[in-house]
């Protein structure tokens, strides 16, 4: 079989997006670039959630906690042990993988909302643990890290995001990705086809958490600081919103989801005292409207728009059944 046309177009489009991201530093200010770096952080985090939830069907609300594992690994090694900050990233990924693997164990027995609650508990517990071991983590006063220019942060964040994207793409188009999707679509069918559920479920959690940990490491480098509040519950919720807005089970939606959760609050924020209190409310309303209008996310919206123009194909109904490639 030769390379399919869709693959060729996909690769071409990826290169165009990558080129735009690479060229943005020419037109953006240093401040905008540090904001762009944070979009990169959310890109990696949403990508990581998409693997475990979008592709493997295991709901996680604890992605912020896995980011905390990575963020604290980077901060502690840099601040307390004098490591080069970039050198900490592989260690963070390993720590995240281990954490994700362990949290993935309950996924063998729990499904749906029960699994979601378990990961929710992790999201709540991890910042408290960081608060308690203050000798190690700096407690609420946190740990400060070296500062970098916006350009450096942007280049670093998006280079890593690019690596993560290619990794995810290779992972999901191959044997492992097929197994993940089989687990998502029907566990009974998957196991009767010879897929070992325990292995693939925990593997999915482990890989997802490793990527989230890398996102957490990049995050603390971008804000050059870490304390438990950085990885609070709202971070996990933002990532969840991002993956839903972008589209579950779609790699293309990730960039839209990342831009949405980072840039919309900034666009809404102004410096007038009385109006800033309404930003969370406006953000929440926008999310509700988006969900009501495009329940399957940005990737599905684009697909439907294109189909409306060219064919009459029916759009998929299941949020976990679309764009499974």
């Amino acid at each position, binding site marked *: 079989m030769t390379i*399919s*046309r869709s693959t060729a*177009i*996909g690769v*071409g*489009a990826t290169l165009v*997006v990558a080129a*735009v991201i690479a060229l*943005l530093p020419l037109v*953006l*200010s*240093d*401040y*905008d670039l*540090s904001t*762009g770096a944070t*979009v990169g952080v959310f890109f990696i985090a949403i990508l990581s959630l998409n693997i475990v939830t979008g592709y493997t069907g295991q709901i996680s609300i604890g992605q912020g906690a896995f980011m905390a594992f990575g963020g604290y690994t980077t901060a502690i090694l840099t601040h307390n042990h004098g490591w080069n900050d970039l050198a900490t990233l592989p260690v963070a990924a390993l720590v995240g993988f281990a954490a994700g693997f362990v949290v993935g164990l309950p996924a063998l027995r729990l499904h749906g909302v029960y699994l979601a609650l378990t990961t929710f508990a992790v999201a709540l517990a991890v910042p*408290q643990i960081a*608060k*308690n071991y*203050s000798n190690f983590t700096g407690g*609420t*006063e*946190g740990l400060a890290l070296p*500062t970098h220019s*916006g350009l450096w942060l942007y280049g670093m964040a998006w280079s890593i995001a690019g690596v993560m994207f290619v990794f995810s793409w290779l992972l999901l188009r191959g044997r492992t990705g097929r197994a993940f999707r089989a687990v998502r679509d029907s566990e009974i069918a998957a196991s009767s086809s010879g897929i070992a559920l325990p292995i693939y479920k925990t593997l999915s959690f482990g890989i997802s958490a490793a990527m989230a940990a890398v996102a957490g490491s990049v995050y603390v480098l*971008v*804000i*050059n*600081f*870490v*304390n438990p*509040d*950085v990885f609070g519950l709202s*971070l996990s919720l933002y990532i969840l919103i991002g993956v839903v807005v972008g589209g579950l089970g779609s790699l*293309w*939606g990730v*960039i*839209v989801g990342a*831009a949405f959760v980072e*840039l*919309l609050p*900034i*666009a809404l*924020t102004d*410096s007038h*005292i009385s109006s*800033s*209190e309404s*930003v*969370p409310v406006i953000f929440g309303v926008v999310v509700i409207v988006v969900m009501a209008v495009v329940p399957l996310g*940005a*990737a599905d919206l*684009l*697909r439907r728009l*294109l*189909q409306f123009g*060219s*064919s009459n*194909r029916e759009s998929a109904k299941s949020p976990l059944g679309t764009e499974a490639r």
Partner: protein
Amino acid sequence: MNRRMKGALAVLALAAAAVLVSAAFAGSTATPGVTKTTITIGGTFPLTGPVALYGVIPKAENAYFQYVNAHGGVNGRKIVFKVYDDQYNPANTVPLTKKLVEQDKVFAVYGSLGTAPTLATRDYLNNKGVPQVLVATGDSYWGAQWKKYPWTIGFQPDYPGESSIYGQFIAAKVPQAKIGVLIQDDAYGQNYYDGLIKGLGDAKSKIVDVEKYDATQTDVSQQVVKLKAAGANVFALFALPTQTIDALVVATKIGWKPVTFINNVSASPLFLGLAVKSGANLDGDITTDYLYDYINNPGTAPATLYKSILSTYDKGADPNDTSNLYGVASAWTMVQALKQAGSSPTRSGLMKEFTTFNHVVNPFLYPGIKLNTTPIERYPIDQQVLEHYQNGRMVPFGHIFSNAR
């Protein structure tokens, strides 16, 4: 799905992202912090989130700036005060502070609230040479680490300075003291403990027990019972508001009435009121203050001005919430430094004024407490007065103490 669409889809996704990006990045062109008619400053505050109760502070500060603007401004310039909501989360503080500096082009970052948010941004601001002034946190870093961070300065008395006053008072006035200490098991608690030791001097041997609690723990009854069992007749209670209220209630319940010292952070009328409602007996309990005592001096010039500024420019603000008075006192200090910096202010000139306050009288501080700094003594308020609880409120007594260093 049509294969051709994948490419088109990608392009559309990209376009959508680009629209979002450009919408968010559409910033204004450079506005210098100082123009002929305006001077722009800004800060980050928790307007929403877990400590949103401090969100009244920037409103009171803004009210004072509006009052100053209505009376001619500072050296002919109106103050523009930019306020961003960081929800007390450093992950928000850092980008918002960059926004203030790089997009809003503020002259100085003023009044930003919280220890962690300030720690998270001071490297950046000091690298850029942007004044980070009158930060609203009582940690001792701002005064102690000025050599490394010369662009950062605090406002209120620092925690160790405050507890040193309790130490001085105990050493001088409670000869038979057996001191029991309750602190949080982290840097915050250690700050208070170190100051207490310094203030006690030789009397530090009178400490009979030190109990600690974890920051996440809200029930401190065990610790309070232990302090009573250790025979303490002086209770140094240096905790966060939640634990303070718990400790006061538990002490009353178990029939323990030592001479109690409550740190200023936790001794606001709001928190003490909650403790009383839950059954605590606070009679005679002691704390410190440095703000003007408008409650016991109604009708005086500072009290009247304070109330009229709030009622004119910050409608709905409760003058009995001391955070409002704090905001007005802080804003007064900012205006004073801007005034002193002259008609063509510079950032380094502003820092020079902040580090050379020569016994400046701020009408919203307790009479006799003055703003005093030198280039090597960077604690703007380094004096406090003791107060004790009588007839349902704190009443100042005795002379003004200076913090021991």
